């Protein structure tokens, strides 16, 4: 991780080692690229990769559905239940303000949860698989 994250912003671009990206220039792939594609296929089928994908999707899909539903519900409530939103709750705050501030809070909370999930569930495995895959591609 350390050598990945190290940033040397004064260095010119040319002095940095660079991973050559696999690119498809033409529509029909040359033989060495077909070999590369088989590597990707086999990695995609590997248990290690499935574990990473599971870790990612099992957090991100429900969380996205959750915050989108919560935001849309909040917006639709302003439009179609303004009376409810005007209920005074605490001091100068009515329900609308409280839910609005709740959107801020939930955004910050989900950001933190997502980062924690990524750090603990898949960062290390993803990095290992990256070097592994790149070795196979060579």
């Amino acid at each position, binding site marked *: 991780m350390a050598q990945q994250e190290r940033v040397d912003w004064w260095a010119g*671009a040319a002095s940095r080692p660079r991973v050559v990206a696999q690119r498809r220039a033409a529509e029909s792939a040359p033989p060495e690229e077909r070999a590369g594609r088989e590597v990707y296929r086999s990695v995609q089928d590997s248990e290690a990769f499935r574990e990473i994908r599971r870790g990612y999707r099992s957090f991100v899909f429900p969380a996205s559905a959750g915050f989108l539903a919560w*935001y849309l519900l909040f917006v639709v409530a302003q*439009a179609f239940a303004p009376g409810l939103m005007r209920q005074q709750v605490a001091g100068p705050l009515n329900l609308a303000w409280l839910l609005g501030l709740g959107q801020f809070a939930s955004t910050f909370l989900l950001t933190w949860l997502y980062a924690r999930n990524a750090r603990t569930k898949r960062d290390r495995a*993803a990095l290992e698989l*990256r070097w592994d895959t790149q070795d196979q591609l060579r």
Partner: protein
Amino acid sequence: MTPHPSHGLAVALFAVVVAVTLTITVWVGRRGHAAEDFYAGGRDFSPLQNGFALSGDYLSAASFLGVTGLIALYGYDGVLYSIGFLVAWLVVLMLVSELVRNAGRYTLADVLALRMRQRPVRAAAGLASMVVTLMYLIAQMVGAGSLVALLLGTDSGAAKTWTIVAVGGLMIVYVTVGGMRATTWIQIVKAFLLVAGSVLLTVLVVARFHGDLGALMHSAAQHSGVGDKYLQPGLKYGSSLTSRLDFVSLGLALVLGTAGLPHILSRFYTVPTARAARRSTMWAIGLIGCFYLMAIVLGLGAGAVVGAKSVKAANPAGNTAVPLLALDLGGGPDSTWGLLLFAVISAIAFATILAVVAGLTLASSAAFAHDLYARAWRRPGKRQVSEREEVIAARISAVVIGGLAIVLSLFAQKLNVAFLVGLAFAVAASANLPTLLYSLFWKRFTTRGAVWSVYGGLVPAVVLVLFSPVVSGAKTSMLTGVDFHWFPLENPGLVSIPLGFLAGWLGTVTDRERADEDGFAELEVRALTGAGAA
């Protein structure tokens, strides 16, 4: 409110902003002339730097002056408007930033081209990206014209015209000379100034009310002229069923559009890894979230201290609420501190405008040169464009796009800026986001599905606006005297976003060509692990 005598100082500070940004451009732009330098700033920015740059790209003058003005005038409904801009970042963080960083190189279309036939998808996504950035660019430049004129205390058409031309000229210089590296540094400096200025004013407002935010809310409601309604939903977006639906449409466009904005997506290529992209997004969410929280205090502060009536008298949209607040907090128009604070805040707003337009021009020129000129327009087997030629094309296209934006902005001066921004988000959400999400997550998605979903979102979004009250049939329409509108909403998102998703699905399931499974394997593995990433 009449013009204030502090404009000499403001002009001097504007000149300082221009001098500093040009120095950055020349200084930073000398290093590196490869495509990676021009489009991605060498990919060696740190997460903190890129987090500031993302906030700088995102928080336009429309946020700094527009949102605070809306809050000052409409209270709660202004706050409501700002929330969509923040929540949208969760889509960016979770579904887009890391995967796009790993799978692409410079543009959105790079991600699609990994698993699709590249010429049709690049043509579609490149065009949609250019449409989105151009709309956003026009919004910013029209806003710049009227804002700078306001801040300088003149109302003359010539001042606005010259401002638009000058802002356009500066942004062309930033982009052609400095590329992404200079643009990023300008964003960083601007975001820092913006946050520092907001913190300063927020502290002053809170101190004025002795730390009692409840008192601030009450005072703002009292001075709003509408009493308690100021703190309740419905003041701006609740007058009729149509206006409420319009707000739902806008909310949907805001929350889904951010993740499809080309100038935001291209920011993720300026950091070395997906993990750095994630961390920069987290910095951006922190900065943007805190900024909008401060915007609530500033907006309410302007409502309470300056008063909604004076805010509206200075500018009907409330765009000068924050500068007026600064003037008042510093001690009023006759005090040195008041004048100084007013000038400083005006200069920050000016820096904000310059930085955002530079980011947009760069994204637009990248979409043109990298996707359209160098790839979509080349037949396989014929001579391909070299990297050097592509960068030259990108610089030239930045000049042309900048010039086009200047001309279009001069014609579009009557258009409502907030509406144009909402429209750009709607197009991004309808054309770019469905394609991007399907490509990243749907195994069966085909080239035809990708092309359909871009055009299936882009065309309805634009057509619905043409037949909306924005163009004809209302008092505030672009065209007066004719009425051919049949679509009731100003923002097309509610209809065009589902259409974009639907078209992508339909194009795929009716396609006889099977999806490229090897391509999807490469995309998935690259996106989640970073193997083979640029």
